[in-house]
């Protein structure tokens, strides 16, 4: 892993894929807030929406774009020599936070035409970012597996409020292990962890044989506010416990992979953390 240092020649991004085996449990919210949190720490971040048919990243941020991964794929295919991924990104910015987005195709038909190898090439071309966050859909598709392959870590999300969801979380985890993904690469993240539920988190950890890497609390009102405002939680609900929890998760993802990384941007971090404290998150 390397971090944005102007002098470094070889670098590659940390790729965090946000994956789950149950749909509709907050992957996109997690992806957006990871991107925003990392950007807030001073990293160069790109968020790729690879929920190709029904991606929600632009929706949740109230953005519009005609440039999408579908356009990028066409351009890469037609004119590989003049292709630059930069031309297909759109920026989200608010205050000191700015990150880029590679939007999902606008039309189902375009989504249907995507090619796994070309998308992999496109994601690899994002290597000038410090972090690439990939929002996936809830299936073991060829595309998702290719993305999990090139990911540094897999942020594997589960919501344990419903028996079928738990079954799918367990089956998904076992499948990832069977597919030879290292356990250290798979980060179990429980979403809506403190919602009223019949299933105990300890039992889930026992079932999986692995503790949760992080637990995100249930905070429907803040998420709602965030989606309605079209802004990440740090702006829409700065004081919420969920915002704080995302900040902790970002902390885990910035410090853990390599201590040096944090040191190189330590000046940034301290400034931002002071601002953070001032704003109460």
């Amino acid at each position, binding site marked *: 892993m390397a971090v944005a240092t102007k002098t470094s020649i070889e670098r590659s991004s940390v790729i965090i894929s946000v994956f789950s*085996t*149950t*749909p*509709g*449990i907050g992957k996109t919210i997690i992806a957006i807030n990871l991107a925003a949190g990392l950007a807030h720490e001073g990293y160069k971040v790109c968020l790729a929406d690879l*929920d190709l*048919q*029904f991606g*929600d990243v632009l*929706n*949740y941020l109230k953005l519009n774009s005609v440039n999408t991964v579908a356009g990028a794929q066409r351009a890469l295919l037609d004119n590989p020599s003049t292709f630059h991924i930069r031309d297909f990104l759109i920026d989200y910015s608010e205050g000191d936070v700015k990150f880029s987005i590679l939007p999902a195709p606008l*039309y*189902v*038909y375009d*989504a*249907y035409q995507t090619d796994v190898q070309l998308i992999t090439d496109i994601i690899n071309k994002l290597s000038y970012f410090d972090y690439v966050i990939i929002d996936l*859909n*809830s*299936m*073991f598709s060829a595309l998702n597996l290719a993305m999990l392959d090139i990911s540094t870590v897999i942020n594997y999300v589960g919501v344990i409020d*419903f*028996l*079928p969801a738990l*079954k*799918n979380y367990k*089956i*998904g985890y076992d*499948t990832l292990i*069977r*597919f030879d993904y290292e356990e250290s690469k798979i980060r179990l993240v429980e979403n809506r962890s403190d919602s009223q539920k*019949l299933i105990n988190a300890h039992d889930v950890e026992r079932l999986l044989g692995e503790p949760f890497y992080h637990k995100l609390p249930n905070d429907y009102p803040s998420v709602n506010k965030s*989606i309605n405002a079209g802004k990440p939680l740090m702006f829409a609900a700065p004081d919420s416990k969920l915002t704080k929890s995302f900040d902790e998760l970002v902390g885990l993802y910035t410090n853990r992979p390599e201590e040096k990384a944090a040191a190189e941007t330590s000046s940034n971090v301290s400034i931002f953390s002071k601002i953070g404290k001032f704003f109460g998150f």
Partner: protein
Amino acid sequence: MAYKVIVVEDNQTMMDSMLNVLRRSPDFEVVATYKNVNAALGQASMFKPNLFFLNLENEEMLNAVPDFVDTFRGAYILGTMSQWDPLDVNQAMEGGATGCILKPFTAKEILEYLQLYSVRGQRKPAELISFFSPKGRAGRTTLAAILAMIIAEKTGERVALIDADLQFGDLPIFFDVEPKRTLVDATQDIKLLTPVTFAPYFHEIKPRVSLLSSPDRPEYAELIAPDSLVEVVMMTTNIFRYVIVDLPAGFNPITLDVCRISDIVFVTTMINSGFEIKHAKKTMEMFSSQDDGHRQVKTVFTRVNPFTEENRQKIANQLGYPVDVMIPNEYRMISVANSGRLAQGLPQDTQLMKSISGMADKVIAFGR
């Protein structure tokens, strides 16, 4: 009492071999044989037959199925074929045939087929209903399961549930069953199966409702070829009057193929962030662009709150299509599904059950 049998067969060798079997069985009395369709249609009523074997490999005979059904009301009309041909079978069933049988056959096999076909329900083509949802988590599976049980209850006919959500099918857990055979087995064996040998692939959940399960590991989904799945679904329509398919989320070869042959597609959406309506619109546009005038694509919105006509209109305006079915929220459903008791007891007399019951009525009316 023995069946009074008429055999219509233009191949003499085949005729001899069939007669050989039928004449040795006390269950069958061959009252006449014909090589020609028109002779059979014109003369057979003299013998008051109640079971016909028609050679469907002969196109003239295949096309005459509706005439036989019309002329000999109440009689069983079995199409015969040396190799299972799903399209011919389909045509015969649409013509009102009781079903089809592979020849040569044994007397025991005939009785098995007749048993299978008579419990199926009315001698009408099956109705194939598939549940599609753009992103998933729409209540699709719950709805499919409850609809299956209500239709079986209302009609007394047999209903099949096919869990084609191949990677993460939830129907076995909803019913708390562990079927021995799954869609993987069915799709791999389908070329060699007949309705009689295929029927045991289903797991009976309750009388008249049976389940064909999804694979137990996500990677097994890859073993299921879309065209084999289509064949499985088609053979299911031969032994069940209603076939309900729970599809995986989004457009993929499996969902497109199954929707292509479906009579009704329910596009199921649960409103959460609000953008789901946008996804449903995209989905409806996709289906409209492939409209062939055969299937009906209906929109279903689950957990609609407030559950009012005003809200229906509001959703419809945003969607650009009518809201065909609205399902209200029912928290008790979660605990029922959680405990695998879906087949035993549903919260009765709730708005939820009334809505799904209304949905069942529409489905039943469509097939009549």
